[in-house]
């Protein structure tokens, strides 16, 4: 076990602290609400000489990710952070980072996308990047933010994986609220993340390589995409292995999904991020009232933990999926589509319904979550039929 101290701090602050402990060679970032205090605090740590990082100030997120890609191709350990419009502006580089198999670590402080303009939490930013080939981890609390950030390094840098990792934390709710966090000692983190041994690095001048080559005109583009798919599939086992090792070090459990009160549950809510806290609270209330309520929190969204979801949900009488992003024009939100698809091959059908909630930071009140459990109970009892996707609490 690592030596740990308990501090009261914010999600953003622990990202900066975890970055310092992981000692990236390069950080290139551009400030954007609600990520700003991450890069502010990290800039201060660099200015104080508490980390050896080359800190590159850039004029946009497009340039931030481009600089990260260049540095990572050169062989550096690279980290950055963004949110919302910033992530959207990185769009084309996200695919280049994963296609070039560069294990860049990025914190994304989930925030709604314009228009209308908004600075508060939802997941529409990261859901736009869900097919970009990045590993995507979600945190409920500042503690999980810290843990995910540190685990992201050995996950992304694993020689069988070599993929970028995005660690998501909910804008303002997790980024700015003061939370209780256990931080590990520097030596334990240093030993846990290890040294990065880059392969085919540009700055390995004894073994010159050229990056960014053309693979069209009948070239092997298709084969490269296949290796990318194999890598992210393989990352699942690596994430579990790293999670196990981290659990031993920290004393905190980690799974691709976290299940709560699921042993005898009949109705369950599936959720990502900070809202899991409210759902857990309401589930306990519902249990006191005789409803066998449970909760499945997805910690790793990419790769999507299909087997784990199936094993957690296959016996449910009704499942409600909460999506903090819409997939406009689709049958439901992204988490719903993935969850229901995962359950499709079961012999007996599990009813799954979808709720879009909390867009643009719209308040996720306990009574709204209660209506979801009530709906699910009615569906389970056969007194209500499956309904289509609903905007939870929208007027």
């Amino acid at each position, binding site marked *: 076990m690592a030596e740990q101290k308990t501090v009261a701090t914010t999600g953003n602050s622990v990202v900066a602290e975890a970055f310092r402990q992981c000692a990236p060679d390069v950080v290139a970032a551009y400030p954007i609400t609600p990520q700003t205090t991450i890069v502010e605090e990290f800039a201060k740590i660099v200015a104080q000489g508490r980390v050896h990082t080359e800190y590159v100030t850039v004029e946009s997120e497009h340039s931030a990710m481009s600089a990260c890609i260049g540095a990572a*191709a050169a062989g550096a350990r690279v980290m950055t952070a963004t949110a919302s419009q910033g992530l959207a502006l990185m769009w084309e580089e996200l695919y280049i980072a994963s*296609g*070039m*198999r*560069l294990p860049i670590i990025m914190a994304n402080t989930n925030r709604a996308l314009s228009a209308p303009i908004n600075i508060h939490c939802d997941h529409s930013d990261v859901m736009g990047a869900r097919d970009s080939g990045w590993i995507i981890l979600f945190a409920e609390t500042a503690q999980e933010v810290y843990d995910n950030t540190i685990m992201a390094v050995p996950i992304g840098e694993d020689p069988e994986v*070599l993929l970028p990792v995005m660690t998501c934390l909910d804008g303002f709710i997790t980024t700015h609220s003061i939370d209780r966090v256990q931080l590990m000692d520097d030596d334990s983190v240093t030993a846990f993340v290890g040294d990065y041994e880059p*392969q*085919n690095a540009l700055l390995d001048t004894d*073994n*010159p*390589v*050229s*990056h*960014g*080559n053309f*693979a069209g005109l009948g070239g*092997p583009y298709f*084969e*490269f995409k*296949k*290796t990318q798919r*194999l890598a992210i599939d393989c990352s699942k086992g690596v994430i579990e292995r790293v999670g196990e090792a981290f659990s031993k070090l920290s004393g905190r459990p980690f799974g691709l999904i976290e299940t709560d009160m699921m042993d005898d549950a009949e109705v369950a809510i599936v959720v990502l991020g900070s809202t899991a806290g409210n759902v857990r609270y309401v589930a306990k209330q519902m249990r006191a009232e005789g409803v066998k309520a449970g909760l499945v929190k997805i910690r790793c969204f990419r790769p999507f933990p299909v087997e784990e979801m199936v094993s957690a949900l296959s016996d449910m009488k009704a499942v409600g999926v909460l999506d903090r992003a819409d997939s406009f024009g689709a049958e439901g939100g992204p988490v719903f589509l993935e969850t229901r698809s995962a359950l499709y091959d079961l012999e007996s059908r599990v009813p799954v319904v979808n709720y879009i909630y909390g867009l643009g930071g719209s308040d996720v009140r306990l009574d709204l979550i209660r209506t979801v459990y009530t709906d699910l109970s009615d569906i389970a009892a056969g007194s209500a039929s499956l309904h289509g996707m609903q905007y939870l609490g929208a007027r």
Partner: protein
Amino acid sequence: MSKWDISKMNAWKAEQFPLRGVIPDAGNSRDYVTGGWRSERPVRDVETCTDCLLCWVFCPDTAVRVENEKLADDTFDLDHCKGCGVCANECPVEAITMVPEGCELPEVK
């Protein structure tokens, strides 16, 4: 270092390609024959040519061959010349003509 052999690349499985899509050896661009894109080829009139080497200076594909500070007899590297015509355009004595490539083209009037 051994030269990277890509002669059987079209039969390679996905996992046989180098990580990150790199070319893991220097100097391979010579093996990548790009002359097939050409629709016109340069022809040098040896009588008119003064060996000023401006064509060698201007060629964007380093496809003009020089030996002993004079243009080589086998002047143009047609494996890499893309037929852009810069050499013919820059030649101060009009010693280079671009002629249609590949097939007998019908005369255009």
